[in-house]
């Protein structure tokens, strides 16, 4: 047993560097059935921890004698899915076309997925089966109870999806009378998931510390090595992951870590960024190799050949050249505004110069308003103002009476100064989100906007004599209403009242952000800032 402990972790700890302490901890805790319920909090790399646990229990020597089921609470979003997945995994049952795609049938063909009671019966049934199997295998250890381990990844999802199942899962060993250890793995705290009134026993807590720089770099290097062996096995001509590039990669990864660690230390995120930039990064190096070798002979042994790495000053220049693009990669790839492949293509070092400007992505996921007709833009602007300004301020902001003087004065007595005297300063509405306004108010503001900014552009018609008469007529057109409906359907406006509701005016909410509104106003040459109660 001791031999197992000493022989298996080195292989694991090579892949998961920095986890040695955790590995020895978890193996000694679960090697004999002491604790029925463990809770692992990992706020940094929960997926890596999950795969580590998976490897420990699947082929980690001492603990792999236990039956193991690894489920993800995101995937098991209903109770039946959870029961079936767990039982199939514990029984080692593969759902296949040949066996009719059925779940683990048990002995009597009964279903074990209809309720938690049946599930518990299923567990007991499994236990009996293992025990019989063992007794047949070696008659000596009949008494030894088979142990099982159930790992639930992303356990915080249980609270949303299966709140009724948390208590039974945490008491699984007690309820089923089977030696089963439940391990919940989550990035949230147990206190956030815990059912009320102490219905669940408190778990054995294990917290995972963030990995250090060296550990992060080591695990990234491990990935490089495994990729290069994989590619060597596949026999590709691509030298991007050639084994002899490893020293360069180490330096590169350290540099990536230094640049990005301020923003994220998640190993997988770093890996993603590193993988996106690496092909571009080594391209000059490989090109130089090719030029040196002469591009005449595609020697099959060329892959095996060592590559000469650039000297230290060359490396420094390379790293320095790519630093800005690493920051750019972080800004784009970390929030997943695009994927690594596309990004790598767009930021290829050779073509970077010409089409850098074109890789503008729709970052905010905002509504695109460029193609809208002029009137729709005015409607959107009016909606934005109606959603941002308080209703009481409309007369002051848009009234034509006392005009500029009064308006400006009122406006500069802005809420910020009022807030200094009052107890609580007001937050500008632009930051709190749009408020709801009735259709009438939208039309009124739209009228004011058109009258101020649109009249000059219209061809004058002699039949309108009174000032504003033409605008009034424009406002009454059915086209305005159609445009509002269209904007609603493209979610630039949100209708908050039900369509079938008759009483009262329909209520709307603006769906565009300040930035988009600013762009529209610029296009229409409307001084937006002057019209806002809370100017920026």
């Amino acid at each position: 047993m001791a031999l197992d402990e000493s022989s298996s972790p080195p292989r694991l700890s090579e892949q998961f560097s920095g986890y040695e302490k955790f590995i020895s901890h978890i193996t000694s805790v679960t090697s004999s059935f002491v604790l029925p319920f463990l809770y692992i909090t990992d706020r940094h790399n929960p997926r890596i921890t999950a795969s580590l646990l998976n490897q420990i229990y699947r082929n980690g020597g001492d603990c792999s004698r236990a039956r193991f089921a690894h489920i993800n609470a995101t995937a098991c979003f209903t109770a039946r899915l959870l029961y079936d997945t767990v039982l199939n995994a514990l029984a080692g049952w593969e759902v296949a076309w040949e066996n009719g795609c059925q779940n683990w049938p048990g002995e009597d063909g009964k279903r074990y997925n209809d309720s938690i009671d049946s599930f518990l019966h299923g567990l007991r049934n499994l236990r009996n089966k293992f025990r019989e199997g063992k007794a047949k295998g070696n008659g000596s250890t009949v008494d030894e109870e088979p142990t099982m381990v159930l790992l639930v990844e992303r356990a915080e999802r249980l609270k949303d999806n299966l709140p009724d199942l948390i208590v039974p899962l945490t008491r699984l060993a007690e309820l089923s009378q089977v030696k089963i250890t439940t391990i919940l793995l989550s990035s949230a705290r147990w206190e956030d998931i815990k059912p009320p009134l102490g219905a669940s026993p408190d778990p054995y807590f294990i917290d995972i510390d963030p990995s250090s720089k060296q550990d992060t770099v080591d695990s990234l290097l491990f990935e490089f090595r495994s990729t290069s062996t994989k590619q060597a096995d596949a026999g590709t001509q691509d030298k991007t992951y050639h084994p002899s590039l490893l020293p360069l990669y180490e330096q590169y990864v350290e540099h990536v870590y230094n640049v990005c660690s301020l923003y994220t230390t998640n190993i997988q995120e770093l890996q993603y960024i590193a993988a996106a930039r690496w092909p571009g990064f080594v391209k000059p190096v490989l090109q130089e190799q090719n030029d040196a070798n002469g591009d005449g002979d595609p020697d099959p042994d060329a892959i095996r050949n060592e590559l000469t790495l650039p000297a230290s000053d060359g490396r420094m220049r390379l790293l320095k050249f790519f630093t800005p693009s690493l920051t750019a990669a972080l800004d784009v790839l970390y929030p997943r505004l695009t994927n690594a492949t596309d990004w790598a293509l767009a930021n290829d070092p050779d073509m970077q110069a010409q089409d850098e400007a074109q890789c503008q992505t729709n970052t905010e996921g905002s509504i695109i308003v460029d193609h809208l007709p002029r009137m729709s833009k005015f409607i959107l602007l009016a909606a934005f103002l109606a959603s941002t300004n308080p209703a009481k301020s409309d007369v002051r902001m848009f009234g034509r009476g006392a005009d500029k003087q009064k308006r400006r004065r009122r406006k500069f007595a802005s809420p910020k100064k009022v807030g200094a005297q009052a107890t609580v300063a007001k937050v500008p509405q632009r930051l709190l989100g749009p408020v709801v306004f009735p259709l009438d108010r939208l039309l009124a503001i739209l009228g004011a906007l058109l009258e101020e900014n649109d009249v000059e552009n219209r061809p004058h018609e002699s039949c309108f004599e009174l000032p504003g008469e033409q605008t009034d007529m424009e406002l009454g057109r059915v086209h305005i209403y159609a445009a509002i409906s269209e904007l609603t359907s493209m979610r630039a406006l949100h209708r908050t009242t039900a369509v079938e509701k008759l009483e009262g005016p329909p209520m709307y909410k603006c769906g565009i952000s300040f930035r988009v509104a600013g762009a529209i106003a610029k296009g229409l040459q409307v001084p937006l800032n002057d019209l806002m109660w809370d100017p920026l």
Partner: protein
Amino acid sequence: MHSVEISTPRLFPKITFTASPGPSTRQYLAKTPTATTGVAHQAAELAAASPSRTQNVLPPQTSPNRTNQLPSTPIKDRLQSKSPKKDQPPASRPQSPTRIPRNLPSHLGTCLSLQKRAMLLELQNCIIECDEDSSLGPTNTAASQQLKDLLAGTVTRGEGNSCFVLGPRGSGKTAIVDRAIASLNQTPIVIRLSGYTELNDRLALREIARQLSIQTGKTYFGELNNDNDQEDDDNPFLDAGPSIDIPPPSHLPALVSTLTTLSRSVVVVLDAVDLFALHARQALLYCLLDTAQSCRVGQGHNGIAVIGVTTRIDTINLLEKRVKSRFSGRMLRTAAPTELSFWMKLIERVLRARIETPEEEWEPLWTLTIDNFIADGKVLKQIRETVAVTHDIRVLRRILVGVIAALAPSSPFPTCAQLVSAIHAQRIRDPFPHLSTLPYPSICLLIAAAHAHTAGHDAITFEMLYDAFREQYRASAAAPIQIAGGSIGVSRCTREVLMREFERLIGEKIFICVAPSSTSIAPGFARYRSALTWDDVKRAVDKMGKTSLKKWLTKAQ
């Protein structure tokens, strides 16, 4: 004498020296030489100047006697009787547990893992063994005896009995019930139901029937349902459908009343019985208790016992009047013992688990370290504190598992520091230990949220935080300060990166949603509140040690 220096410092030598005034030191050393610490080492050297040279050779061998200094240690006599034997030639040195090595010699690695396993096994069984010593305190012993008598009445004389077992968590309720059932001389039919899984009476009914058919080999009301199913079987798609054959509630009285007519007597264990009282009309409780009450001795029936297990002290008040009147009113209380000595004994037993090992030096070495561990005043203080807070045996078990699991060849013996860290990991948990390791954008958001809170805005939106951050960034960029060539201003973060970190904080439940999210609210405008106080953020920022963040946090807005 080299060995003397590397051993771990302890409290007691100091005590011994303060206890014995200057002149008597030499004499004292001669009697029970205690030379395991640096302090003691110096003292030994002092003593070396004294004529008794031969005795100064001894100290490392007889150091187990250090425990002698502790008042009322039972090991005292044993060790003292041992020590003369060890005053033997220096050749016997390696075998004697003279010192605690900091690192484990490689050949003892097997012993350590065996020892760990033995301790964990001991821990697993500890509750059961405790009670057989009947040292579990008067309350539990009495409860256990009463329950045994009650069940014996049911099984041997065919009585109908009912009782509740009440007690706080981890006080041994379930263990007492299990043991009482196991101690019976005839095996009854045991039906276990839990309020956590049986959410209504129909599920409970189905479960009763299922457990009965497993234990008796007959089916109950299954035939009825099956007959119905046969008729429907014309439809080939039906049998694959998700139909659950839950019996109608009308079967309940019929099934429960058959319980007394079975070949053996029946014990029904209701875990979390207070939750059964929430079921509609308390039908199951009513039927069970009614059957138990009306079970008369000597009518050819077998007995039935209904045992409710709960932590809720007012469970009986939850029962409806008609149910309560059928309940016998017996309530057995359990409580864990409160004396420190019990818990200390428990810990000692776990740590002193025996192992079979060919290495002879292991056992004395281990005994010595455990002696030291148990006798350590700081350890005692920690355990006293824990016991004062909770009498839950499971908490103690978790702490011990934490100590045992932390043993490794590099730190092979339990220490007070390990105990403290195990207690911190299991009992007194820091709610947000990782704040200082959060990435920069998250901390910025937290600082902005703390400022918003100070300004009186409990609910925050992402736009507010982003605006505050932008303001700060602009201010810092307007007046760039450089120290030693590096900027100490606020680093740039794009809106999207901040948004991603914001979502991460929501996922970690540091930002808690205050209004239900809806599709018409843009993610930047959803309202949250921060679970952290200003002090939490302050501590994290201080630990991070970034000047710009510190300045921002302490800045009045």
